[in-house]
Every structure is written in structure tokens, then in C-alpha cells.
């Protein structure tokens, strides 16, 4: 927590905003769509782009992953070092297999990460992401969740957020700044 406080003071966040912890100080552990365990240390020295969502989400999540796929295509091989991950906020339904079937529809560089409820909660808190289960009348449920795409420099420092409604013309330069 000390590290987080120091970081926030140094970079003077906008009023009320709380920045994600640097990747190098994160402690989560998750499982990818190929059933491999993934830790923040695996991402050191690589630029990182992370988005939280869930595969039962019909609108925001496929739209964001389509956008991300277009950005990656525009960047081409330049983005090959970039770690791109969708972290599920619905681990109850999003098993590694469910994520594999889902991310397979988008750019092959996009990973899907899930875990136990506690593992996901820890990752979300380190990214400063919020999510909430919304129950519907028929016993089904959906999830509200932070929709931005988080960017980090190769040294793990938080770089910027691409907001859900940001124009593509602004998204690609933001990603490019994390790549060099």
C-alpha cells in the first residue's frame, strides 16, 4: 500500500481518480485460456494492454475486443511485444474453455484470463477496476464493470486509459507511446 500511495503522489492523478498499481507491484495470479497460470512478473519488460469484461456480455465486450483487434491490425508487427489481455469479471461462468472459445473470434494476440472469485477480485482491485453482479428476474445475471482499456509501459508504470467511447484516432497513438 505504501508503494501505491507514493506512486499516486508522484504522478498527481486527476481529482478523484485512482490509478492502477504498476504491474511490477501487482500480486494477482490468474489462469489463461490455455489453462496456464499467469503472474504480473510474466509481463515485465513488455508493454501491456488490459481490459475487464465477460463472455456473456453481448454489446460492450465484443465491441471493445473488435476495436482492440482493429488497433492491433493497424499496429501490425509493431504490437507483437504488447501483452493484450481480457480479464473476466465473471469467473463463475468464464472458465478457461469459455474464454478460449470467445477470444478465438478476435485478434490471436488477445489472451483471456480468469480465476477464482478471490483471484479476480485481487486483480480488479490492483487495476482499480470495479464490477458488480446484477441479478435479473429470471435467475440470470449480468455484470456491470469498468469498461476502459488500461495501458502500461514495459517497466510496469501505468500509461493511460482508452475510454470506451474514445475515438480510434486517439487509441492507436496512446498504444504506440507504450511500445517504444
Amino acid at each position, binding site marked *: 500500500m505504501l508503494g501505491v500511495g507514493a506512486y499516486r503522489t508522484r504522478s498527481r492523478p486527476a481529482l478523484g481518480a485512482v490509478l492502477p498499481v504498476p504491474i511490477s507491484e501487482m500480486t494477482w495470479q490468474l489462469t489463461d485460456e490455455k489453462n496456464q497460470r499467469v503472474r504480473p512478473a510474466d509481463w515485465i519488460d513488455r508493454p501491456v494492454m488490459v481490459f475487464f469484461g465477460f463472455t456473456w456480455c453481448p454489446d*460492450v465486450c465484443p465491441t471493445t475486443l473488435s476495436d482492440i483487434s482493429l488497433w492491433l491490425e493497424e499496429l501490425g508487427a509493431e504490437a507483437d511485444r504488447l501483452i493484450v489481455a481480457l480479464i473476466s469479471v465473471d469467473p463463475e461462468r468464464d472458465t478457461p474453455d469459455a474464454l478460449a472459445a470467445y477470444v478465438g473470434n*478476435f485478434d490471436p494476440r488477445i489472451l483471456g484470463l480468469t480465476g477464482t472469485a478471490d483471484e479476480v477480485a485481487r486483480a480488479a482491485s490492483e487495476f482499480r477496476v470495479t464490477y458488480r453482479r446484477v441479478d435479473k428476474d429470471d435467475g440470470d445475471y*449480468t455484470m456491470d464493470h469498468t469498461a476502459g482499456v488500461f495501458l502500461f509501459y514495459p517497466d510496469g508504470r501505468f500509461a493511460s486509459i482508452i475510454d470506451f467511447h474514445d475515438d480510434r484516432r486517439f487509441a492507436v497513438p496512446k498504444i504506440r507511446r507504450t511500445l517504444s
Partner: protein
Amino acid sequence: MKHLLLAATLSLTASAALACETVTLGDLSVEHGWSKVTIGAGRPGVFYVSISNVGATDDALVGISTPAAGMPMLHETVVKDGVASMPHAMSIPVPAGQSVQLSPGGYHGMLMGLTAALKEGDSFPVTLSFEKAGEVTVNVEVLSLRAEGPDCADAGQ
């Protein structure tokens, strides 16, 4: 071979025309009905469409129904303080002289209780109910999960 090619051309034309055809109901015209592939039938499908009102009277889309889903509903994706949610939309205004889009990241039809998984190239009817104009049915084309909308020559999307 010739026949195969011809068949392929025909089916492409047919599927492109489906989402691009315009259906009118009084002063309303409805076009570009499309949806996305679903993985299985357990996940909800989505429905997007463009509606324009060339008349002098405001109208509103108040509901949808389709044989493809047991519980279709109108939703609006709202991003507030960075958090996305999709509350039920009781009614989507279609003001006089304006057009409204059900499109990714905004208003959409949420197709819960799908009768079958939606596969790329499939199509299904959706009936739209308007407060004043009544009901109209459009054909909806299922595009890939990555699709951003149908490719129509009139470039409405």
C-alpha cells in the same frame, strides 16, 4: 464449377441484401438489422438496427419480439464514471425528422433465451413495435463477433 460459383455469388448477394433492405411503416423506415454470432444458446444475442422518421410526429420504439429468443428486450449501454451497465430501455425515442441507431455501445436489442445459437450467415425476423406507427418486421442478418455492422452500398452504417 460454374454452378458452384453462381450459387456462391447468389448467396452472397442475398445475405448482403438482407441487412441492407429497407422496410417502411408510414413515416418510419427501418434498415440495417443485424446481430452477432453467439457461442452456444446460453449467452444472450444482440440486435442492432437503424430507424428513421421522415414524418412530423414523434414516435418511439417500445418493444421487440422474435421467434429467435424467448425474452427479447430493449437495452441501453450506459458508461458512467468509467463503468458500463445496460439498463432496460422502456422506450427509445424516434423524434420527427430524425434517425436513431441501435448500434454497438448504445441502444440495442438484447436477445435472452435464444432458441438456438446464432451462427454467421443465419438470419431471423425481428418485429419492432412503435408507440404510434404500430408493428413492422425486419430480417436480421447474423454477422461475426468482430463485425461492426453490415456492408451496405448506401453506407448508412
